[in-house]
């Protein structure tokens, strides 16, 4: 089954993304074809060198660099979400693929299941 996992909350959103990530990895363990899409504040997840201990918080970010271990490809990132936050894909912590907002509906329709954080 083709599944897409949407991450829309930033690293300041507590353990939201972390718990979503756990579910995604369980899904991957069932040999499903999974793509990751970061949009809205979710794009902040991939900013390099984030150190939550500076604001006294425990590190609860998902281990994004382990996606490959679970057979999940480079994340998709919505171009406009980056642009609206003055970010560029090449400044992120890992290689990503971009998808434009206008193409999102078609993109999402190609999946059997849509999940989110």
């Amino acid at each position: 089954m083709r599944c897409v996992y949407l991450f829309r909350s930033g690293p300041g959103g507590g353990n939201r993304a972390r718990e979503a990530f756990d579910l995604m990895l369980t899904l991957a363990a069932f040999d499903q074809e999974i793509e990751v899409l970061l949009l809205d504040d979710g794009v902040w997840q991939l900013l390099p060198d984030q150190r939550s201990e500076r604001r006294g918080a425990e590190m609860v970010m998902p281990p994004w660099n382990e996606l490959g271990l679970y057979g999940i490809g480079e994340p998709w990132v919505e171009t406009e979400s980056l642009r609206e936050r003055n970010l560029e894909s090449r400044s992120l912590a890992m290689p990503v693929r971009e998808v434009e907002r206008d193409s999102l509906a078609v993109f999402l329709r190609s999946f059997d299941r849509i999940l989110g954080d």
Partner: protein
Amino acid sequence: MDDLETSTGEKGFLKYTLQVNASPYQGEAADLAFGFASALVAKGHVLHRVFFYRDGVYHALWRASLPPEEGSRLMRWSKLANERGVDLVVCSAAAHRRGVWDPEEGSELAQGFRVAGLALLVESILETDRYLVFG
């Protein structure tokens, strides 16, 4: 809808998995989830499983007691399970994290709830026709 092929074997009727991420106390998502669950059962669809994840696990606290004006927002799930045989599952990891359930000692949960891992949710997502997330 009439010619839709479904896992229930009956035309037009669908098998659902619902995931409730929201706590019973904040926002509308938990109310919406219950309204949706009741409506689909009333229409004759099959509610295969309700999986309580994230803050949704607070639904299973058996000692929670609400003032009468806040009505039945906890008991109503137990009632649904009892009357319709709906499988109410609380995520073990999320419940452990929040002190709702202890893997060593076990914990009493509200009536109709049981504890299981994320694998059970994934199985439901893959088996049923529709999967909806609340909160």
